[in-house]
């Protein structure tokens, strides 16, 4: 009996240590960053390519899920994302020292973006799309930080996330990251056309298109073989369309029509974009025509994947 007790104690210790080790935040060292003189203009470009303000700018009204914001340069946070895991409140990322990210070092910023780890070493929830931002070039990230440092510092108080019980344990996100955060920076695939590669970088990295357009497994990881084939809206009701060249996606759209839609917000059937895609499209309209064309070329190059079978309305 005594032996059984000690066996249980030892197993618990091993389990605890294993959990501790497996869930440790994994970061990159400052030494891995390139020597780089920040280009603020490119940082501003990345700010729009990355859609930072779409989530982090304060909502226009007292409704925390108001899709509109009044000033995209004031990143006071406070917006709520209502998801199946609970309600996330978007943090302040203005340069305010108390409530924002003022005073962060370059390496702290980069680790937040590519490893989803805060300066104090805790995991961020992947509602913050670091699974996409990890693909970004360090130079682009350093430029982005330099631009964000020029934005107004705003004080705000953002409520803590309100999540269902198993998801409240932040440390457990370390396990999630072992499954879904591969730590790879973007590199073009062999023989990939230069324009397609640029589009791939924008879509996979800063644009984080797959965060909404890709279906996820029950743990919230993107299903790799169904990427971009559409998914239930991660924030509540409705459906985010399939953007692969399949007939259930945008296979009928020409490259020119994709470019037009990103520039104007009108689809080939002369409907307009809606929901959160409006903010995304307004950002895409700020990119160069060449980059919109690159995005279109990449989307056209994706494998055509059929949308998942349609669910009955009653299931929602």
């Amino acid at each position, binding site marked *: 009996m005594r032996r059984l007790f000690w066996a249980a104690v030892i197993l618990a210790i091993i389990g605890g240590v294993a959990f501790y080790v497996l869930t440790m935040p994994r970061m990159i060292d400052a030494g891995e960053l390139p020597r780089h003189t920040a280009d603020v203009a490119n940082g501003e470009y990345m700010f729009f390519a990355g859609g930072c303000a779409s989530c982090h700018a304060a909502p226009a009204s007292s409704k925390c899920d*108001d*899709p*509109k914001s009044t000033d995209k340069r004031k990143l006071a946070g406070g917006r709520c994302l209502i998801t199946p895991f609970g309600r996330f409140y978007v943090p302040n990322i203005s340069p305010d020292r108390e409530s924002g990210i003022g005073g962060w070092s370059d390496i702290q910023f980069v680790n937040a973006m590519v490893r989803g780890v805060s300066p104090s070493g805790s995991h961020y929830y992947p509602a913050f799309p670091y699974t996409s931002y990890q693909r970004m070039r360090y130079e682009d990230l350093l430029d982005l930080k330099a631009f964000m440092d020029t934005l107004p510092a705003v004080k705000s108080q953002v409520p803590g996330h309100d999540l269902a019980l198993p998801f409240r344990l932040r440390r457990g996100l370390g396990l999630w990251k072992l499954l879904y955060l591969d730590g790879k920076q973007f590199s073009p695939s062999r023989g990939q056309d230069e324009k397609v590669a640029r589009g791939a970088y924008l879509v996979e990295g800063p644009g984080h298109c797959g965060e909404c357009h890709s279906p996820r497994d029950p743990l919230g990881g993107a299903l790799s073989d169904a990427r971009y084939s*559409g998914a239930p*809206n991660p924030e509540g*009701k*409705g*459906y*985010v*369309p399939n953007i692969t060249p399949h007939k*259930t996606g945008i296979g009928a759209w020409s490259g020119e029509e994709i470019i037009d839609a990103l520039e*104007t*917000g*009108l689809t080939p*059937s*002369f*409907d*307009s*974009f*809606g*929901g*959160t895609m*409006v*903010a995304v*499209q307004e950002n895409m309209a700020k990119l160069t025509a060449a980059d919109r064309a690159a995005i279109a070329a990449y989307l056209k190059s994706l494998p055509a994947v059929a*949308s998942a079978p*349609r*669910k009955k*309305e009653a299931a929602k």
Partner: protein
Amino acid sequence: MKRFAKFAIALGAVAVAATGAVAADDPIKVRQELMKTVGKSTKLSSQMAKGKVPYDGAQAEQAMQTIAGVPDKYVTLFPAGTEKGGETEASPKIWEDMAGFKASAEKLKVAATAGAQAAKQGKDAFAAAFGELVKTCKGCHEGYRIKKQK
């Protein structure tokens, strides 16, 4: 008697017409058809604004007037009980915030009315006004429409 027969026939005709009207008056259908009308005018306007078809001031003005005629009627087509069914993509927010929804629709009317005026001043003025109109489309679809899987 002959008079009565005539009266009865007329009454019957009215009843038939009324039944037909009830079917065509399904608000979900009517509002979807109205949006298609807007889509058609948007298509023509967009193609002219972009120079994909030759600019025709009269046609551009007509397209804008067609769109301007929609919002007042459109906002009356969301009575209680039409929140679901018929593949509607209307968001529950319409009913939670009817005043905001109506204000949003009014912006389309204002933009289309301005567009009809701009159409008389030539292609560039029209294209600029059309750009403003598209913002009102997005502004409303941003909060009051929920895209469903096709």
